[in-house]
């Protein structure tokens, strides 16, 4: 469970406003307006919204890549303006690119050294991350030849390399096939179990729904809804009942009772699996 009492929140965004100045004669663009959010230590927070809603700008402000026009952001109590605040953060940008001339392993060694890692520890950790993200075979291959999915996994590996307490993932499954996407989802679940805080944006709402404790929905630079996922998606006046091996007679009986008590029968039918699950079941190789 998130421990919010003993340590400062993993992320705070207070009244963040970001205005991008335009050229002469053009109107300035307000990307984020008076945004406030808090991500508690140990929780998985999903930030969702349509393209151009201000999610990426918010993430960049949290990482100190952009300076806020108004308001402030912190990471574990330290202002994002301070470079030190990034010591505990791993960031995976949307569609990450790395130096094409480096191999997979060299890339991780480069990022590890930037995080003050060195020697045997760094070598071991880099190889461990390559194994974790399924890139062991690509350790000595130039990044220039990596597929989009492999780049995404390498991005994840560099984000996790220095064992950060906060992981920020911007569209982590963009361009990744369903199996890779599921793997990333499993990794996020693993972070949650290890008490690592995750701030994630994704267009795949089903995935957000599966992994997030809390969700914020942004539109036009504002936070339009925020709260615990269970609370947000529950339909107050509807109840779901899932039965296995129920005969048509039993269903008719239940329906009659419900309607006799004044409830409205909305729908009944077979439960459906998701297309993702069907894809994975169909394409997964049988274990020998």
């Amino acid at each position: 469970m998130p421990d919010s009492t003993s340590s400062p929140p993993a992320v705070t965004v207070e009244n963040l406003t970001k205005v991008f100045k335009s050229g002469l004669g053009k109107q300035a663009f307000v990307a984020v307006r008076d945004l406030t959010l808090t991500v508690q230590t140990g929780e998985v927070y999903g930030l969702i919204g349509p393209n151009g809603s201000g999610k990426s700008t918010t993430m960049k402000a949290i990482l100190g890549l952009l300076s806020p026009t108004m308001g402030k952001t912190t990471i574990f109590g330290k202002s994002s303006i301070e470079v030190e605040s990034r010591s505990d953060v791993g960031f995976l940008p949307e569609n990450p690119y790395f130096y094409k001339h480096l191999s997979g392993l060299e890339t991780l060694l480069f990022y590890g050294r930037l995080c003050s890692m060195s020697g045997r520890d760094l070598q071991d950790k880099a190889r461990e991350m390559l194994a974790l993200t399924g890139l062991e075979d690509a350790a000595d291959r130039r990044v220039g030849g990596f597929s989009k999915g492999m780049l995404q996994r390498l991005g994840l590996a560099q984000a996790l390399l220095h064992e950060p307490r906060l992981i920020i993932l911007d569209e982590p499954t963009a361009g990744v096939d369903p199996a890779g996407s599921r793997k990333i989802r499993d990794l996020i679940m693993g972070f949650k179990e290890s008490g690592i805080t995750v701030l994630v944006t994704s267009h795949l709402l089903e995935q957000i729904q599966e992994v997030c404790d809390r969700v914020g929905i942004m539109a036009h630079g504002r936070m339009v809804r925020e709260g615990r996922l269970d609370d947000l998606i529950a339909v107050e006046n509807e109840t779901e009942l899932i039965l296995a091996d129920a005969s048509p007679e039993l269903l008719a009986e239940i329906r009659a009772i419900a309607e006799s008590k004044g409830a409205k029968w909305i729908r009944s039918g077979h439960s459906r699996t998701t297309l993702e699950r069907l894809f994975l079941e169909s394409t997964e190789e049988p274990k020998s």
Partner: protein
Amino acid sequence: MKYHSFSPARIWTLAAATVTQLVRMKIMAFLVVFCVIVVAAGFAFPVMNPEQQLKLLKDVSFGALQIFSVVIAIVSTALLLPRDLEDRTLYTILSKPVPRYEYLLGKLIGVLLLIGAGLVLMDIAFSAVLWLRQSLVLAQSIAALKQEGVATPEALAQLNEFVGKQGLTWNIHLGVLAIFLKASVIAALSLMISCFASSTLFTVVISLLVTIIGHGQGLIREYFFSEGMNQIMKKLGSALLAIITPDLGVFDVLDNVINGELVSAFSAGVMVGTAAMYVTGYLLVSHLLFVEKEL
């Protein structure tokens, strides 16, 4: 991991990555072209007199060294920052605990290391060819003197002194140092321009333009600052010109080196001081521009 606000290790990591990047872009292929040019210049035109032969070799070699250093200083520096921004590699680097000034410093040191290493290698090749040519010229001249029957000890000493002056001396290396210092200033200038430029092409064109103007500062001063001009105005004008463009004329000692004239310690000191001043100044402005840059 404990964070330090200044880490030479991080700067070295960035510099080493920059060197690797440029080396793997096959930029050093220029070295091979240089060696071919030097060897060709060294053994071409054997009918010229000894002085002309050695001068031509130095002239061609220093020309190639200058082209290598200026082109690498402008093009490679102009490529680095905009490319990192376009590829979004900058996001992953600066989202690590890396201060922006360390990033800039690492990039510049990487380019300077590459230029420095390239110049050292070319200096070695150039010196070897020059020494060979000098020995050959000396042997031929002595043989000619003997054939003409005028090989007196005085004539031989004079020939030795003359060829020694036009041949391989420490002056040659001072000339290479001047080229390196000039390239350092141009690289720092390109880095500063790339901090606000919108594209690599813009950086290359503007850097090249400023470099050309920088070479002609003396001429500009002569042309625009007439004799009757107020002294204060002259000083202000010169200062403004020196701020807008670096005075690259300070590093132009190559003609003296080619003519066998010694570069004084004072001139070398002025070159090092001027380069240090411009590189520090450009780095400071680069930092001020880059720290405010919205990524």
